[in-house]
């Protein structure tokens, strides 16, 4: 049953060295605060799963925390490459990293199958695609009615998933709204799930019945971290800090600059620092 905890404790209780972990968020609601807390606690040998690895995985990879990455788009969306991830893949710096690469369709179906308790996902995909030749986890099944050959990938079942959401009620039910991405699936596919939220409200009684609400018993821990998604955004709270994404391209281009930035902005900071980072973005939301 869900517990409300300080972020430091919630991360410590739910993440372990060697875990497979998904910090999900499809551009929107990226759980940056939780990722930064994981960086501060210095976990090792993680298998990092995410459709769009983005800045937080660039940071974790750059800090040498990942032994493997499972992804479908390892870019800085709209900006370009992820330079720490590149350095790890191309040069094995700061450590070699294993790569399992899928398409978005493959990852989305794999999360869906994980949430659905299935061992694999079946879909029409990867036809003529090079990934099918380099990823042994892309296989096929044959439709027993039509004979059509369909793609199959293993379902994603992380040891733990972290997501950021708009709000929880006092009982611990969690609301995700706007671009809902893959968050519900990431939570339901995981053995345990940890959620950071912008705020806690008394009840969800006034919510529309068809919104994306995760019942309290699907979540292990909730931490209240206003701004916890920055430089991503929280629909209804603050806008995306596009400039920070543009700026990241320069920071990550240089190993030393990266380390200095991480020291100043992550290692020496805490979850409490996020609220101030989004202050100027609130009006735009």
């Amino acid at each position, binding site marked *: 049953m869900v517990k409300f905890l300080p972020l430091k404790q919630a991360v410590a209780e739910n993440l372990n060295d060697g875990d497979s972990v998904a910090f999900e968020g499809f551009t929107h609601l990226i759980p940056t605060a939780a990722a930064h807390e994981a960086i501060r606690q210095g976990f090792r040998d993680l298998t990092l799963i995410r459709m769009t690895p983005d800045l937080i995985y660039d940071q974790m990879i750059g800090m040498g925390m990942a032994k493997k990455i499972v992804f479908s788009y390892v870019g800085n*969306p709209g900006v370009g490459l992820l330079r720490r991830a590149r350095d790890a893949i191309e040069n094995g710096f700061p450590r070699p990293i294993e790569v399992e690469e899928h398409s978005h369709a493959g990852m989305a179906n794999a999360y*869906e199958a994980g949430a659905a308790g299935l061992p694999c996902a079946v879909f*029409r995909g*990867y036809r*003529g695609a090079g990934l099918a030749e*380099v990823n042994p986890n892309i296989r096929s099944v044959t439709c027993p009615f039509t004979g059509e050959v369909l793609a199959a990938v293993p379902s994603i079942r992380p040891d733990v998933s972290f997501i950021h959401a708009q709000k929880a009620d006092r009982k611990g039910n969690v609301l995700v709204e706007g671009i809902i991405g*893959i968050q519900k*699936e990431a939570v339901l596919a995981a053995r345990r799930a940890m959620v950071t939220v912008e705020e806690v409200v008394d009840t969800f009684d006034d919510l529309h019945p068809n919104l994306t609400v995760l019942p309290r018993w699907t979540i292990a821990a909730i931490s209240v971290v206003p701004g916890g998604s920055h430089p991503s955004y929280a629909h209804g709270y603050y806008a995306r800090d*596009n400039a920070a994404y543009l700026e990241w391209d320069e920071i990550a281009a240089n190993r030393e600059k990266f380390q200095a930035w991480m020291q100043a902005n992550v290692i020496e900071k805490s979850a409490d620092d996020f609220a101030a980072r989004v202050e100027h973005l609130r009006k735009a939301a």
Partner: protein
Amino acid sequence: MSELGFTPNEMMTIAASRALTNDDVCFVGIGAPSAACNVARLTHAPDITLIYESGTIGTAPQVLPLSIGDGELCETAVTTVSVPEMFRYWLQGGRISIGLLGAAQLDKFGNINTTVIGDYHHPKTRLPGGGGAPEIATSSKQVYITMAQSKRGMVEKIDFFTSFGHGEGGDHRKRLGIDTAGPTLLITDLAIWKPDPVTKEFTVVSLHPGVTCQQVQDSCGWVVKFAQALDETPAPSELELQTLRDLQARTKAAHEGTGKGKAD
């Protein structure tokens, strides 16, 4: 800006926008395709349906998104669905009339590489990868490709098949069980290309104003085929150009405006 009053990139975006109609349902990538789709929406195709892979269906942003999941896409959408639903019901379900793709490397049969330069397992340059592209390329009824020409980008042989175009040409798609049309249009900063009906090799059918065949060949890594009757792409109209520039100005202002006060 050339003496023509517009840049090659503006011409590319506007030519792409003209290929889109009011009835199209477009799966939109970021960059040039997004600009082209929104110029179409703001000019001749107000009812065009734009879908971004983040789950936003029927969006009408005032500002071009930096990512495929910016907030305005959701705020202006008819509906916003989950990413699994997007890929299952909307793309795989066969509802997309035009998939728009860009390319880091492209070959003459419309095969695209955005994954690696060099060997996959020991890459010289690791690029972002395919994202939605592998299935956009096979599940959309047609695929339109936009890219600025260069010998490095338009190559005889791509390093990796991120998404399948016409393969080795001819009926290669059909032989792989892919029943959609694949790349039917390539719009570069210099020309409009269409696949040969039989070989499926991209052939230049229209040169943008002021562009010569030689320029097209000089910035392409394969021997270019030209149609017998070459058209000239009509220059951007005042409305098209103004619409694109206004859109880009709004976009620039919006993206820069969020830069203050970030983590330092």
